[in-house]
């Protein structure tokens, strides 16, 4: 049976960018303009989880994202890899959302979409790393959730997920509709095919404003949040590494052993 899926995606500063480019200016993370944003790594895994199900049993994938000033090429990657539809909650009022207002707006949009069997989210965003929005959406919609899935299969109106736990994994079964957060292990997001890229180029995302999902501007973004960012800062890391060198790498290795013994570390 085809499965109706929604995948929540977030546009974030590239988390793989070198640490040196991350600079806090006026309490905001500011990256140089040449560092392009990306879809968060865990949302990419979430997309891949949905695409694998679409491959196996067919279905529809609606990607949805919340923010402002989306870079179209970046966020349309969801369409290029195989999502059928892209909905952007895009408005100035959505800026500086916290987990609370993000989940609230996404849940309202998902209610408007109406039809869904599985909602996929990444385990956490790649910028704020909070890991709350997926579970928040599930709670608002009153549906069960399975977190930290690294494999998802569906059959007979149920999903079976491998949930990662510290010493292994659990196989968890849940009836539709359900929300699943995805972690690494599912496999990297597939590359977009040329055909996919061409099709995505022609497709326009659907843009919804707060009013389109029945929310006041005061209920979304920073105004609708429940936590206040007092300060964003970068702790100063003092490098104090003692480099052990010698004529050859092997000699340096032996010298390291001597040095560590000398300072009684080993």
């Amino acid at each position, binding site marked *: 049976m085809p499965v109706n899926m929604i995948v929540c995606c977030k546009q974030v500063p590239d988390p793989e960018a070198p640490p040196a480019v991350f600079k806090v200016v006026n309490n905001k993370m500011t990256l140089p303009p040449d560092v392009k944003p990306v879809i968060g790594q865990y949302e990419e895994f979430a997309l891949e989880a949905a695409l694998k199900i679409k491959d196996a049993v067919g279905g529809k994938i609606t990607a949805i994202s919340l923010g402002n000033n989306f870079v179209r090429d970046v966020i349309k990657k969801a369409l290029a890899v195989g999502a059928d539809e892209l909905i952007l909650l895009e408005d100035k009022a959505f800026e500086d959302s916290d987990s609370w207002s993000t989940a609230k707006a996404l849940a309202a949009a998902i209610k408007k979409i109406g039809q869904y069997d599985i909602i996929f989210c990444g385990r956490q965003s790649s910028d704020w790393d*909070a890991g709350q929005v997926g579970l928040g959406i599930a*709670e*608002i919609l009153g549906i069960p959730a*399975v977190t930290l899935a690294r494999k998802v299969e569906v059959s007979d109106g149920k999903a079976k997920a491998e949930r990662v736990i510290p010493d292994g994994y659990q196989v968890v079964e849940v009836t539709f509709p359900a929300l699943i957060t995805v972690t690494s292990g599912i496999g990297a997001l597939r590359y977009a095919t040329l055909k996919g890229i061409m099709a995505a180029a022609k497709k326009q995302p659907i843009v919804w404003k707060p009013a389109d999902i029945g929310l006041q501007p005061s209920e979304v973004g920073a105004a609708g949040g429940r936590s206040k960012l007092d300060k*964003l*800062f970068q702790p100063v890391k003092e490098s*104090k590494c003692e480099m052990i060198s010698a004529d050859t790498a092997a000699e*340096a290795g032996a010298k390291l052993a001597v040095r560590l013994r000398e300072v009684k570390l080993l």
Partner: protein
Amino acid sequence: MAEYKGILVFGELVDGKLASITTELLGCGRRLANELKEELSCLLASDVVGEASKEAIAYGADKVYVAEHPAFKEYQADSCIQVAEKLVKDISPRVVLIGQTAMGRDLAPRLAFRLGTSLTTDCLDLRIDPATKLLVRTRPVYGGNAQAVFTSDSMPQMVTVRAKAMSPIERDNSRKGTVVPAKFDIDMSKVKTKVLETVKEETVGVKLEDAPVIVCGGRGMGGPAPFQTILKELADLLHGAVGASRPPADNGWVPESYHIGLTGKIVAPDIYIAVAVSGATQHTAGCSGSKHIIAINKDPEANIFKVAEFGVVGKYEEVLPAFISKLKELLAA
């Protein structure tokens, strides 16, 4: 509006004993409770709680709420949240402390949304603002590239705390406290998930979280073999454990249980030997609590040298065998 008072710790048990994260939360909770001159309580929910309630008192709790039910044998959000929600509504704590663990990650956000309060996850530092009595929460963001300080006026003040970020107080078996049964009902019809199977993937030997020495391999190891051979040889020599950064785990070279980092395990051994690990912030977030970091990497610019105390630039294939043989010689002497 109810008056919110006291600190509540959500405890976790491992093999019938308090998990180390719970002793850490109790340590942190005790400090906050003393500052506020309020009570520290701890919820222990399991199929059997037994002596662990006394342990919680010895580690600082004034009051332990015991919730025993067969449904708690294996953690599931849908059952656990029922007792958690009930207790928080009954006792209205000012602060709720939960571990940033498999359970905490799964339970805390859901509970916060249900209670209509804000949650800050993965906190490294917590203090009380003396003027407002609000909890000031510091947590890493942007994969560890920055830290953020949050406050919220929604009650209760709810956070999850990273493992090893807080210190337990010294165990004192003569401490006094009360143990009371938690009042709750479990409606099994609300449990919508079903655990079909639990599979342990842990390898034999020293557990990563408990190992005094960790030898961690990164992307530069090039494949699964060196994890079984040279890294294991060094770990065995030092009575330690082998770990990995994210790429080896993602590539399937090692089980996910080896993964150290922001989204893997957080470790804080005495000695951390990072081999062919570039030191992405994602990774160092999981090992920066180590007492001494030693790095071996062929790239002199690798970020790992910024957090290391001792470093060698070179290919691990050349550095490690000489290091190990010299070390054997020195240890034998």
